[in-house]
């Protein structure tokens, strides 16, 4: 199932904390107060999860399909390459 990097907007910080009840993959350190009393948090969600949040009154900005940011499987280095770069 595809996942998406998103930014979830809540009406206020309390509404943001209420997101915990969903047990979704939201990134705590990204929680921020935005303009006025509004608050936002980034996360990694499926389309089904996004729909649930929207139905519950949250705004969700879809940033990117997750696989586009997965550089850790493609850009790798062997120990030999690490050694060669440093001449160890």
């Amino acid at each position: 199932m595809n996942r998406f990097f998103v930014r979830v907007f809540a009406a206020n910080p309390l509404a943001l904390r209420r997101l915990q009840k969903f047990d979704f993959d939201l990134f705590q350190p990204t929680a921020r107060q935005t303009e006025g009393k509004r608050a936002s948090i980034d996360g990694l969600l499926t389309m089904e999860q996004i729909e649930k949040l929207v139905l519950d009154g949250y705004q969700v900005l879809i940033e990117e399909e997750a696989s586009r940011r997965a550089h850790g499987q493609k850009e790798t280095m062997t120990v030999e390459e690490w050694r060669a770069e440093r001449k160890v």
Partner: protein
Amino acid sequence: MAGYLSAAGIESVIQIIQGAYSDICQLIVLPEQSVEHRTCRALKIAKGGGTRTGVLFVGGAHARELINPDLLVNFAYNLCTAYTNGTGLTFGPKTYDAFTIKLIVEALDVFVFPLINPDGREYVQTVDAWWRKNRDLNPGLPCAGVDINRNYDFLWSSGIGTSSNSCSDIFKGSAAFSEPETRNVRSLLDNFPNIECMIDIHSFSQLILFPWGDDVSQTTDPSMNFRNPAFDGLRGNPGDSVYKEYIDAADLNRFVQVGNHMRDAIRAVRGRVYTVEPSVLLYPTSGTAVDYGYSRHLVDATKRKVFSYTIETATEFQPVFSEALEVMKEVEAGLIEFCNRCLCPVESVSSGTGLVARLDRMRKFRDRVMLAHSSGRRYVELFDSHSAELLSLTAADAKLRKMATDVLQELADVVAPARGKSGPIPSSLLKSSGGLFKAAGAKASRELKKTLLTLQTDLKFFKGQTAEGGLTRADAKLTRKKR
């Protein structure tokens, strides 16, 4: 081709660094294997012995945050290489000179545990790029994995910012320290009680975070704290006024000051500004390494206070590697700065003398008496801001070092006497202090010379006074100046 190392690669590189720099690197095999039976290793980087402050860096707790274990092995390698070659370290336009590197290696024990959660990293690089937890199969539960950074023993049972659902990415586990990965971090803190500074490195958001994470903090009511059961159920709502977590004002000040120094070092590399703030933000947590590290001394007074931080590096979990290299540079500068701020000239000068046994009482004097006075806070700040130079001066000049030891000995007799109450400051101490300031000033930078002159002038406030009386008189001068 440059890129992220595998879990096995990180472990191999740790051993390669130790082998290449065996005179300053010690391999520490952690007592427990990971859930999938991988051996976990850390490095201790240090030259020489004696009582020294320990600094601990840990990373890789959250599997998908790939950049940080690579960052930490590069940091360890760069530190060892620079020390061995007698050079400084340069991160873009930011440079630390050879003497600073020498001081760090010779006056601190630097512990680097780059990959707490090797099973998770393996899973991320081969199966699911966005896996966060460890790979505990959680027998009897529907999903695998425990969030390592919700499994420490800090308000673990409160449920604040954690989940009891094994399918959640913030599943806290079956008990505090239920996971071997968290127990390994605890074992480092237990087995190396000299560790006084710690950073747990995560991604992402460009943040430097310090305690507390469960609620906003306050410095006025010590009874309102995480150990007090009267407040159970009231924590974890940062917007309300019902509960605020107590933190010692002097500690809070240090967290902010040191955090700001790290921020400035990071910014100097390529202009990225990391925000320094308490970790609670808008979204509280419990069971985290940062709060556990700092809370240990409050739970058990025999344990040393650990000034613990979380750094949230970068703006994504797995940046393109060319960008990851830039992030590593800037954060490494922050880590060197952190080491610098953990260096203590008093501890260094006291090493090998009878003063070591009295350091705790002297620290108490600093925290309880000096920091309660505006002049005292100013002296402490001046001292901290010149600590690296003071260390280098006393390390390079045996006569100056002896003078400093004598002054400290006499000062300890006054402010931390073996028996009875502290008395008035003897004129001999004022005279020897003046002599020390003058001798150090002759070899100091312009800034330090200026500071030493100020201190020399201020000695008059302490004539015939107790230390506290002198500070009160110095406070009055500061107040007059402000007017």
